[in-house]
Structures are given as C-alpha cells and as structure tokens.
C-alpha cells in the first residue's frame, strides 16, 4: 500500500481515541509507519457484529422481562459472549450454563455462583437478582 492511499475514513468507533498505525511505502518504495483515522471496511464489519449482539441482547431482555429466559442470557449477549465463551469464563460445562438460562433454575442458583456471574459480567449482583427493577 502506498502512503498516499492509506485510508483516512475517520471511523466513528475510534473518534476521540486517536489514530492507528499501518505500514505503507513512500514514493521511493521505503516502508514507514503511517497514522490513519481508520478504514471504512473495519467500521462496517465491526458495526455489523456489534449490531447483531445488540439485537440478541434486546430480544433476551424482553424475554427475561416476561420470564421466558434468565437475565444471564441478556448479559451474555451484552458482553459479546456466546455459550462457549461464557462456560469457559465461568469454568463450568456448557450444559450447566445452558441450564442456568432457564428462569426456574436461575431462581434457585446459589449466591456464590450468582456472584461469579456478576464478576464475569462486571456488574453489581443486584442487576442479576433484581433484574426487572434495574434494567
């Protein structure tokens, strides 16, 4: 890539957070570090995946409100996690996490397990136990 062709698309995600560095060649073909405000391509794929997680989280929030799923599912999507990642983070089997997504099982979860979920999601324990009042 030539220096003058390095994209400067002013990505929204990165605005206020400075620039990134890429390697590009000058007219003499020498490599150098060049600062860039981003490439639209990066923004498109990032927004797409973030949007997907947000949709899933919103759907889980509504279902959690009406008692069809547990708040864990909402926070899982909100934190860009999937079942595998969540199970790995909790250090328990995937089928157990899946079970915890059932409202009936969730209500009977021990405080210590609940606390571990809260730590993993980086939220207050109350957000899980009193989900409806807090979210």
């Amino acid at each position: 890539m030539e220096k003058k062709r390095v994209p400067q698309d002013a990505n929204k995600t990165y605005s206020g957070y400075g620039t990134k560095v890429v390697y590009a060649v000058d007219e003499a073909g020498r490599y150098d570090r060049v600062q860039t405000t981003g490439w639209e391509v990066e923004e498109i794929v990032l927004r797409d995946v973030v949007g997907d997680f947000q949709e899933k989280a919103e759907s889980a929030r509504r279902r959690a409100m009406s008692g069809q799923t547990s708040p864990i599912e909402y926070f899982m999507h909100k934190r860009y996690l999937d079942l595998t990642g969540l199970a790995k983070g909790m250090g328990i089997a995937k089928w157990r996490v899946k079970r915890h997504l059932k409202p009936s099982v969730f209500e009977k979860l021990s405080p210590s397990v609940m606390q571990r979920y809260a730590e993993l999601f980086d939220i207050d324990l109350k957000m899980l136990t009193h989900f409806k009042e807090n979210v």
Partner: protein
Amino acid sequence: MNTAPAYEHRHYAHCESGVLSSLFTHHGMALSEPMVFGLAGAMSFAYLPFVRLGHMPLIAYRMFPAYLIKKLPARMRVKYFRKRYSDSGRAMAELDDFLANGQVVGIQMSVFFAPYFPPEMRFPFNAHNAIVIGKENGDYLISDPVFEEIKRIAAKDLEKARFAKGVLAPKGLVHFPLQMPGEVDLEPVIRKAIKKTANMMLHAPPFIGLKGIRRLSAKICALGKKHDKKYIRHFLGHLVRMQEEIGTGGGGFRFIYAAFLQEAYQLMGIPVLEEASNRMTAAGDAWRMFALACAKAVKRREEAIDLEAIAGLLRQCGEIEKKIYLLLKSLKKYKTTNTASIQLPSAKCSSRGDLC
C-alpha cells in the same frame, strides 16, 4: 510512587510485536516492529473449522498469541523473564516491586476491562499486550502500542484485566528481558526465521498456510448451499474482523512482513529479499481487496452475494503468497553482499540483578 525513567512510548500497528519492539529497544537492542515480527516468525495463516469462536471457525493471519514472547527471546539468545500467577493479589504486589526497581513490565490483559478502549471494541479478547511503565496516585501508567499516548488505568481495573477468565486467560502474565547478549549477528537469525516461515506456509499440515487459504476459499464457495444469508454475512464479516482486529489494517500483517523483508534486504543486500518484499506488498494489497469485497457483501444486505468472486480473490492471495515463499526458499543460494557488519551493540542488564 515511582515512574520508570527514560522510557519512550512508541505507536505501533500490532500489540504483541509492538510491546516486544519497545521492550527490546528500552533494553538497548533496537529492533523495529517489523524486525520483531519477522525474526520471531509470526507470519502465518490458519483456518481451523473445528475450533469455534462465537459460532465461527477460528481464522488467524499470524501465529497464536504469546508465540512471539516465547520465540523472539529464544532466537535472539536473550535471557527473558516470564511469569504467570494464580493469585491476583500477589501478582499485583510483584508488579509494584518490579516498577519500584525501575523495570518496565510487559503484561497480557483483557480488552474488555480496559476502559481506555472505545466501548464498541471492548470484546472479551484476553490476549492483548501492553507495557506497564509506572504508578502514579494509585493509577498505573500503560504504554499500549496501539495507542498514540500513554494511558492510565485504575489498579482495580488493571487487576481485573490481568485476571480475566475465559479463552486465552492472561493469568497475570508479566514478562521483560533480563539480560541482553553482548553482540548478535542478525544474518543467521534472519535466514533461519525466513526459512521456517516459508516452510510452514508451503508445507504445513492442512488448515495451515497455503493449504488453509485454499480450504477456506473452497468453504466460501460452498457457503451458499448450506447456510442462510445472515450466516454468510456474519462469516464474511468474521473473516475481515480477524484480519483487522485491534489495528492491523486489511492484510496489515502482510505489510509488516514486507517491511521486515525490506529491512533484511538493507542489511544483507541480497536482491531476492527486495523482490520478495515488493511482492509481499502486492499480497497485502490483494488481501485488502478481499477484505473490501467481504465488507461490501456485509454492507449491502439486500443484494446477492457473489461468493465465487470473493473466493477467487482469496485464492489469488494464496497464489501471490505461494510464489513469494518459493522465492524466499531460494535465499540459501545467495551469500551476503554487504561486507558491513550487521551486529547489534547491546549490553544492558536488568535491574533485577538477582535473576541475571
């Protein structure tokens, strides 16, 4: 409290190679980021359909995280300190000790717990690298190579970031050079590194190197038969994201490697290296075309996606790269024409003398 003296923050393209370049330079062995990337043999490609990340196969354009931290010191014969912890309190206390001794410390951390990242980028990615350079009023000063300036992070957040759980958990990893060798002759190290990379890309088992690229392009062709449009869109977006994540810019690793080959040419004067560098630049541009085509498919949701064309672009990347690695394998036939010495002067011991 203490802040490290005379540490110069530099802005780099990639976290792990950036951290190592900064640490080595700080300890008197001035290696650029491309040099670090090339010498450690970080260049790669892997498509592992049986390893799943968020319903998507694992795709990597470089060696796995922490590979460089292990490989570079070994190749450069640098005594290197590496430690992981099970107890976070102890890890933080020891970090304070290192800082108090004037050491700057490389760490592994989770992006999710780093408040200085843009919120949309705070994925639970646990293998980010940065350097802690000091402590001020209870906050830590972080030299993060993918940011322009020194960042601050609260002790509480840093502890969480260093002990995030899940895939690739950092387990409080700290690392820094203990003792630099007196002199290093770079040429044999460059030759070995290039040979290893070329061999891996050409002859590694399936899923890795050129075979991985071919397998992935076949997979893209076949996507339409099995999956709906939404999945295809996510799959293509995922390919690009793995290429881009945390600031490497489409095909970014290819440009870093091209810069490495150019630097090697300047040191050794063998024209094959210059030719390979130019072609690697072309490969990087081809990867960018591929990323652009994927992003277009993601953006224009209503239009039909031409999977054949996208797979064709990917195959082309593989073809360009194949010729480069074959060219690089011919390097052994040529002797260095530069008579100038390419030895690195360096002799600086770590402040932790007890470990030297």
